């Protein structure tokens, strides 16, 4: 059974149609990479999945649950706010620009959301110390996995871009999302720092983390993914096995796009 089904997503900003009838699905443990030229709607698609934008049309389904049916009317604001919060947690998002919280250490960045969530549980008061300890250990574990065990108490401004992005990945993993989304995770990094971040994501893929990766690193998109989508002007232009799509693109636009990358 697919873990994620996206059906006929459509999204406009004013007059511009940014996403035009996007449909795809993912199996659990699968890595999907999305490529495409600037302005083709990749970021907007991830933002729709994370409820930062609301699609005009379409359905988003995680396992059996319909998270969003844009055709259906909104519920009252308050109820839907709570619901959107809950639904969001199916997804994690790693931003191009990290967006770490500057006033918290690496470890605090990772544990903050989990702590806030735990505080809402009815048994928080009785088991406070126990719970905090477990959350802290979980955060430390995640940061170690990212190769940052000696950086936990550093503030973001004391870390390199690559280290910041790895903290951001740990932070996104902390709430155990079903699907982790990356929006050009290495685009803001110096070239010599991209390797360490790509390695970490590759490690996640090997452990069968369900991921959607928007990237301009073509080699990485090909090697790490089980499925690739090429987007062009808001549409899915071509989709399939990455080795197939990269070696023998069927669509003229895909060929042109990939050719431009081979030139560089």
């Amino acid at each position, binding site marked *: 059974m697919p873990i994620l089904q996206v059906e006929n997503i459509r999204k406009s900003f004013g007059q511009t149609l940014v996403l035009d009838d996007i449909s795809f699905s993912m199996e659990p443990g699968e890595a999907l990479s999305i490529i495409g030229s600037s302005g083709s709607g990749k970021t907007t698609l991830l933002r729709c999945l*994370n*409820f*930062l934008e609301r699609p005009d049309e379409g359905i988003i389904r995680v396992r059996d649950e319909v998270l969003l049916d844009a055709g259906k009317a909104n519920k009252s604001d308050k109820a839907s*706010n709570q619901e959107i*919060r*809950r639904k*969001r*947690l199916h*997804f*994690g*998002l790693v*931003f191009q*620009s990290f*967006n*770490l*919280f*500057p*006033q*918290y250490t690496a470890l605090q960045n990772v544990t*903050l*959301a989990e702590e*806030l*969530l735990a505080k809402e549980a009815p048994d928080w008061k009785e088991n406070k110390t126990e719970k905090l300890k477990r959350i802290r250990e979980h955060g430390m574990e995640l940061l170690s996995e990212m190769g940052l065990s000696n950086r936990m108490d550093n*503030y*973001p*401004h004391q870390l390199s871009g690559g280290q910041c992005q790895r903290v951001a990945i740990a*932070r*996104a993993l*902390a*709430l155990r999302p079903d699907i982790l989304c990356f929006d050009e995770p290495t685009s803001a990094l110096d070239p010599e720092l991209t390797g360490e971040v790509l390695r970490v994501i590759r490690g996640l893929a090997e452990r069968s983390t369900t991921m959607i990766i928007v990237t301009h690193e073509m080699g990485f998109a090909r090697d790490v993914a089980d499925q690739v989508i090429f987007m062009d002007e808001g549409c899915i232009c071509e989709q399939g096995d990455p080795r197939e799509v990269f070696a023998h693109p069927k669509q003229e636009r895909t060929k042109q796009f990939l050719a431009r990358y081979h030139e560089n």
Partner: protein
Amino acid sequence: MSFAQQFPIVFNALNVGFLQTLKLFFVTLLGALPLGLLLALGEMSRDKILRALIKVLVWIIRGSPLMIQLLIVYYGPGLLASRITAEAAANNAFLAFIRSCRWSGGESGRFAAASFAFIINYACYFCEIFRGGIQGIPVGQEEAGLVLGMTGRQIFFKVKLLQMVKAILPPISNEIITLVKDTSLARIIVLEEVIWAGQAFLKGSHGISGAIWPLFFTAVYYLVANGLLTVGLAKLEKKLSYFR
């Protein structure tokens, strides 16, 4: 009278004046900081009319001298009221209300008027600083909080607030230091603050007359107050320098 004889007399009188200066200073801060925040929130609200009203208010207040504002606030209501005859007020509740809007006599009335003018004036400056501080936080901070399932409240208090405080502390400190000195403007409506107290020894007071040094000496009070404030505010800034 020798200087040594004059000094304790002058010192006592200036202390009394400076107490009034400090009172005006703290009352202004206490009123203008929250009012400034409210104005800032209003300026960012979706209500177009509210936004326009606040913009006009901020323009008028920041665009004209505080001294004129003090004069208008203190003398304006009385002048207006004196134009309304008792008969006119008897027939019209609104006119009656305007007629009743006067500052009470004496020092307490002058203090109330000065506080009113200072609070409005400083609130407008604080408003712009607060707005800059709130809008200056990158949207990425809010979005990062949202995708981690935080509520709007949690994002404001746990993520944005401290960054905002850090960003606005230097400009707010500047305004606070300026406020200490600006309180002397209340002299124009004869509030008995420290400059007034110093000046009194020129004309004659407590048996001393023609002495100008007490007026000069008032500067020491401002210097000491601002010195302490500068040190305190710098400490606070340093406390927040652990992150960027």
